[in-house]
């Protein structure tokens, strides 16, 4: 009896073990696959940030070891460029808002025939390569409008190129906004303007902020159209980076300016994600 019982026990052990081994192999394969997949994502995340990290590391490397001294240039000789960048960015944001808000409102809330066509005209600049936009603007600025190499011309180029980026998220937000809030406000005695300022604009906040973010990121970092259109006195920080790349690319101060630009942009984007999430950026330049 005793031996018989042992045999049964052994057989049971084998029976239990076999699928156990198989499961373990499958599990191990799955774990390796998981590891490979996540490794792939992390590899690309590294590649995405690597150019910035290298630039940043380079900006700290001076003749006498690691130091922040190249950043003295950023707030020294590059200060005017940075200030100009902030200036044109803010002006562009304000102008974009003034253009895009009424336009989005008209497109979503008013019965206008041929909306699809109108939208493509408004978005035309979005599909135009920067170099084409640059040369065409150089031509009309020189010949037709006589604003070549002026700040006006530069801002005009930024506005026409980026206000569709303001338009799209606001249109998305406005379409998402039920019309019933507008109607409720109207029935409570608010006229169109009061409805707009007290109800609709606050509720459109995230969409408008998304537009501001997009304008900021693009205008702040734009260099190619700027290269064509800007006059010698209007060198933005991004254009300065480009010019330095051509003439003094190996200088840590160049890397310092490029790092500063990216850090500022990144902080603004992250701040936006914290406040509003990424919902209203869908279908636009940034995801």
């Amino acid at each position, binding site marked *: 009896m005793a031996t018989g019982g042992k045999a049964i026990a052994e057989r049971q052990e084998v029976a239990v073990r076999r699928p156990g081994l198989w499961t373990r192999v499958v599990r191990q394969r799955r774990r390796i696959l998981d590891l490979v997949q996540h490794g792939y994502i992390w590899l690309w995340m590294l590649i995405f940030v690597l150019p910035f990290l290298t630039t940043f590391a380079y900006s700290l490397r001076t003749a006498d070891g690691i130091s922040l001294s190249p950043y003295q240039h950023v707030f020294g000789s590059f200060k005017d460029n940075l200030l100009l960048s902030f200036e044109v960015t803010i002006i562009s944001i304000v102008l974009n808002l003034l253009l895009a808000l009424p336009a989005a409102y008209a497109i979503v809330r008013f019965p206008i025939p041929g909306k699809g066509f109108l939208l493509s005209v408004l978005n035309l600049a979005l599909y135009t390569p920067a170099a084409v936009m640059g040369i065409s603007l150089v031509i009309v600025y020189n010949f037709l409008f006589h604003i070549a190499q002026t700040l006006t011309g530069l801002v005009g180029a930024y506005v026409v190129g980026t206000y569709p980026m303001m338009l799209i998220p606001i249109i998305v937000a406005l379409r998402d906004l*039920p019309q*019933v*809030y507008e*109607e*409720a*406000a*109207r*029935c*409570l*005695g*608010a*006229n169109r303007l*009061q409805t707009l300022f*007290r*109800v609709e604009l*606050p*509720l459109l*906040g995230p969409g408008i902020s998304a537009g501001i973010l997009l304008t900021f990121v693009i205008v702040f970092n734009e260099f190619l159209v700027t290269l064509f259109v800007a006059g010698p006195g209007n060198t933005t920080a991004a254009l300065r980076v480009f010019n330095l790349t051509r003439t003094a690319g190996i200088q840590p101060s160049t890397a310092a300016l490029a790092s500063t630009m990216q850090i500022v942009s990144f902080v603004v984007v992250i701040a936006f994600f914290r406040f509003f999430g990424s919902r209203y950026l869908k279908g636009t330049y940034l995801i």
Partner: protein
Amino acid sequence: MARVELIEVTKRYGQTIAVDRVSLDIAEGEFVTLLGPSGCGKTTTLRIVAGLIEPTEGEIRFDGQVVNHVPPHKRNIGFVFQSHALFPHLTVAENIAFGLKIKRRPKAEVQRRVEEMLELVNLQGFGSRMPSQLSGGQQQRVALARVLATDPQVLLFDEPLSALDRNLRDQLKYSILELQRRTKKTAIYVTHDQSEAFAISDRICVMNAGRVEQVGTQLDIYLRPRTEFVANFVGDNNVLTGAVVRVQQRDGQRSVVVKSGALELHAVDTQGLQPGETALVFVRPENIEVLSDGVVSEDEPILQGLVEQVVFEGPTVRFLVDIDGRPFRVVASGPQRLTLLGSSGRRVRLRFHAVVAIRYEHAEAALVPGR
């Protein structure tokens, strides 16, 4: 606080007619319900009264003044939406104060009024919450308070309770009625729910396919339907066609005798039917009485029927009874219903109450959906 008149109001969208020559006169302080199936134009009518939609033709008058071209914010109305429509970026108190702030009332008054309103809808202490932190019923009560705060002359309700669950709906409909009674405001209430309409209205206006089918009190609508649509839409009805054979005057009430197959039915008539005309006859399942043995007929004839089906539904029992080869739906309630549970397959005697006859109009009958 205001008399509201709709005069031949029509709204067309291209070829389709959403509202078709609707006329309605609502007295000061009256509570009128627009009742009808979805797509019948009741909401469009309400929105026309609010000024959210301009009518294609016809006039809207408040206290005799034509308000067709007056924008909604100058009409002094209160509109309660199906989806409460509380502003999500404002607190409960700010929502209620919205209309008052728009009217630039002094701060102290606004504050006092908000407190008053919160008390009125039993939400004291909820002022600083955001709308999203409230339950569905509380949200709708805030919407009500927001509307009442500005002291509008007309209250408009667009299916305010349809998004809520049943218990809440029953509670809130009486609160709405009570608030309207207390504030004595003219109210128009849109719903597709009959029980809601019957519970709270002074008068009900039944609409179908953009048109008014009948306007009247609950009793009128239920006991004296004037169209086949009303008879079928409101409650349940057994329908027969037959020929008017004679007219009687009894106790000052006119009634007609309609012959349908072998049946002769005594019916109330409000349209002046004449002998020889074809009529539609309606009798509600709950108005068919199953007689216990021994009840002697007085003047209304007793009918014979064969019980084909019995369904026990708790408070009521449903029967399918074959009378003269035609199926009739019958509902019995009260203690007597229990004695009838085993009546399947038996012959019973029945008495019809509150039978209604209307003129049979072919064209109109053809329009009623599902027929």
